[in-house]
């Protein structure tokens, strides 16, 4: 278990990067402008790439450098570019349909984080890893999950739903780098490509939504009920 016997420098670097990406998730949660989501998402992906590289360096997993490169390129550049293209084509600059104010959403996000900290601490304790970076990794992983779901719930714009889904994935990827750095690379790469296909599919669907429904707000999707 890598997290159990790390030297303090590595442990602090990992913690810092994990916390920075959590903060970036909060930035996305608190912002009303789609462009800001996108920048925060790209930055978060770069932080995760840096994390992969540093785990590779301190843990002695050279293949993680490749994963870091791919993460930086695909998640940090290519995915944001794809989403940016969708935003540009749709010409929507900000989230118009907010039904919970960003400030209240931030409070909800904080509550989620506290909850996940409790869960992570308990699991960490039973594994004998209570005072290691593993607890933090698990917390960040789970709370980014909850924050992603929060975004999916309180935002109605199709694009912020896509970004919400991407945060869900980012959280898992981040946690996986610290907790299971030895995970076979095949899986990581396939999941990365899978993500690209998902976003491409979303792009096509969003265009159909505009043509056939006339809106990209999920508030308008209420024909099918019961």
């Amino acid at each position: 278990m890598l997290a159990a016997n790390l030297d303090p420098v590595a442990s602090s670097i990992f913690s810092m990067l994990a916390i920075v990406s959590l903060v970036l998730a909060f930035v996305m949660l608190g912002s009303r402008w789609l462009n800001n989501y996108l920048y925060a998402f790209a930055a978060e992906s770069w932080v995760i790439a840096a994390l992969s590289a540093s785990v590779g360096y301190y843990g002695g997993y050279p293949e993680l450098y490749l994963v870091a490169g791919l993460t930086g390129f695909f998640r940090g550049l290519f995915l944001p570019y794809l989403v940016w293209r969708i935003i540009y084509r749709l010409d929507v600059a900000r989230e118009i349909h907010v039904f919970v104010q960003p400030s209240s959403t931030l409070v909800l996000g904080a509550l989620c984080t506290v909850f996940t900290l409790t869960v992570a601490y308990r699991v960490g304790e039973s594994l004998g890893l209570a005072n290691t970076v593993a607890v933090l990794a698990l917390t960040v992983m789970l709370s980014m999950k909850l924050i992603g779901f929060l975004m999916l719930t309180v935002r109605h714009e199709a694009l912020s739903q896509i970004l919400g889904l991407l945060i869900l994935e980012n959280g898992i990827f981040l946690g996986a780098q610290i907790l299971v750095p030895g995970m076979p690379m095949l899986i990581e790469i396939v999941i990365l490509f899978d993500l690209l296909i998902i976003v491409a599919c979303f792009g096509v669907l969003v265009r159909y939504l505009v043509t056939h429904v006339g809106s990209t707000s999920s508030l308008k999707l209420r024909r099918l009920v019961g």
Partner: protein
Amino acid sequence: MEAGLLSILISAPLIAAILCITIRSPRVCEAANLIAAGIGFGCAAPLAVISRNGPFFYWSGYVILDMTGSWVLLCSAIVYLLASIYSVGYMRMLGRDEKLWGYYALFEGFALTIFVSTIMNNAGLYWIAIELTTLVSTFLVGFERVAESMEAAWKYIIIVSAGISIALLGTVLFYWAGSFVLGPSYDMTWSALRDAAPRMNQELVILAFLLVLVGYGTKVGLAPMHTWLPDAHSEAPAPISAMLSGALLNGAMLGIVRYLEIADTAGVGSLARNVLAGFGVFSLLVGALFIVRQTGIKRLMAYSSVEHMGVIALGVAFGGILGTVGALYHMLNHSLNKSLMFFGAGNAMRLYGTKRISRIHTFGETFPVSGALWLAGAVAITGAPPFGLFLSEFVILRAGFQQSFAWAAGAMLLLLIVIFVGFLNHFRAMYYERTPRHEATDGGTALSAWCVTPMWLAAAPLLLLGVWWPAEIWEHLVAATRLLGGAP
């Protein structure tokens, strides 16, 4: 031999899809799809028999052919074949010849991803296969390109992707739990996880299992994660609804079965089974409530799928020989029956030009043959004898009372009665109520043989499996259950 069959099974839909994309002639696409489906069934049936001598591993262990997987594969291949035959008739009625190649290419891709998911030996690759089924089928759900179907497609991809990402989190946590036993790098095969399970940390396994259950449960359509299901099933073309319901849901249930096995070995089986039973009962409850008050014909079938996935979940949760065998047998019966029901619903929709139950009337008199088959299917799907579902539900109920799940089995019994009354009441209205005014019929007054034949092909074995549970199938399923570790 079995490796050859497996590669033919996988390459048939792949080649057919490539043909559809390159040739694009509607009749060629139909033929290619039919042939691929025929080959699929022709390979899946012997594979299910051969798997008894297995499990077999191919491709350096990434592909597994085991009894449970090949059973689900067989169910999917049957639905694929039936839906392919029905597609010819249904899509001609729809009259979209210019887009037909895209439909068939996606259809074959959908079948391919479902087939692949049943034979994945690696938990991560299984997750990817399930994710791919979503991506391919989204475009099939939205195939008709009207506002309703786009809405259904959007809800489908968002809800299921979010759900399946929970399953990914669970998968990563399972890998983490295994890494304490097997070291930081290992192949995450089902058997590796199961062998390591007794030494895994139980709290972590509980957390991981619950995440996986909720994640794949979304795809299975267990309530309360089922919300995508009625929309997607009702808006997709009828053959796709049959595929979603009869093939895809089983493919995702397979993942839950495999992870439950790991949870059992890790010693947290009783909690896992109770949670699964809770989801099962809740699915039945939601199914019952929405079936009673349903107004849409295909939504009625969709909620019936939620109900039957609940029944299968209960069978798996009860465990033991009876529970698991009942659940596996129920998968086959449900696949046949739900195909029959969706074909009938597709015919009714086309003939009456409506999705609303209240506008369909005197169906049996107007269309005696397909009407009779559909009505027989409706009796069967509510679990009445002499059809296959009666037997499998009965076995699952017995398992419940035997394995001290009396609360769940009692609730299941009660809800099945409610569903029986509610479901058949809608059919009473569609068959025997005489509204004074005849609605205009849209899609012609006669059904082609392509639309009726698959109904016969589904109804006949359903009746047969109800009056006679072949000893070979029973023994096969018992052996599969023993291998799963569901019983001593």
